[in-house]
């Protein structure tokens, strides 16, 4: 497969290591009352769709960036590629803007 790295352009997937569902970016809050349950779901429960999937790839033989790749698991068509750091920062900003800590 070819992954269109946002900075480097198209690169062979062989240069990358695959981790899994990008939900791994949403690490639960450790002091939450239901932390144990949340971490269990975070780590072990997956939707595993036949279709569009957001997933994490590590550019090991490239610039060592983590990427969030939106890929169709049935056709392998890759619809979007973002720097994971940007995605993570955006989620943080959204969460901080929208939430009130309880």
């Amino acid at each position, binding site marked *: 497969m070819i992954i269109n790295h946002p*900075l*480097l352009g198209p690169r*062979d997937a*062989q*240069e990358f290591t695959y981790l899994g569902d990008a939900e791994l970016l949403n690490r639960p809050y450790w002091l939450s009352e239901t932390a144990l349950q949340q971490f269990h779901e975070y780590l072990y429960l997956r939707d595993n769709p036949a279709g569009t999937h957001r997933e994490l790839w590590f550019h*090991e*033989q*490239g*610039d*060592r*960036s983590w990427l969030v790749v939106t890929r169709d698991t049935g056709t392998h068509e890759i619809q979007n590629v973002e*720097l994971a*750091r940007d995605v993570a920062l955006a989620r943080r900003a959204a969460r901080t803007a929208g939430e009130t800590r309880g």
Partner: protein
Amino acid sequence: MHRLQSRTPLGAAAARSDTIGTLTIAEITDVALVSVSARNDQEPALRAALATAVGLDLPEVGQSATADDLSAFWTGPSQWMCAAPYEGGEVLCRQIKHHVGASASVVDQTDAWCRFDVSGAQVFDLFERLTKAPVRSMAPGAACRTGVEHLGVYLWCQSATHWAVIGPRSSAGSLHHALMAAARSIC
């Protein structure tokens, strides 16, 4: 000057050079390498510091830049590898840290890498056997990280017929062997 003698990555006292057909594969051991990573929100300050201190404009993705005998190539987001003639352990590292101060993390990488400069008319045919990087469309000054025989290396185009291959030091023997075998294939 301290009394420890240095060894090349291939384990010899002096750098070696091999010629196969019209290709030359020359071991380069007198270039210091220093990794520079901008700290959070400090990239503008880092760029300014180096531009001011030594006239070096840090390059964009996939490129390199040179000011006098100091070069830098892009290695990752807000990260570059600087190269200059070797003047002793950690010398370049301290110089650069002095220039950039708190705007970046600076780490000596000189002895983490080995370097083989490949030159000759057939360099593209050579790299076709070794790497998936699109070398034929890379212009002088371009630099990228890619794989060669399971090793992560930097390819740095010095000119159309002169390329630097920078690989992990401990695997210098394997990298050199791969370059030589590919050269024999095509020459």
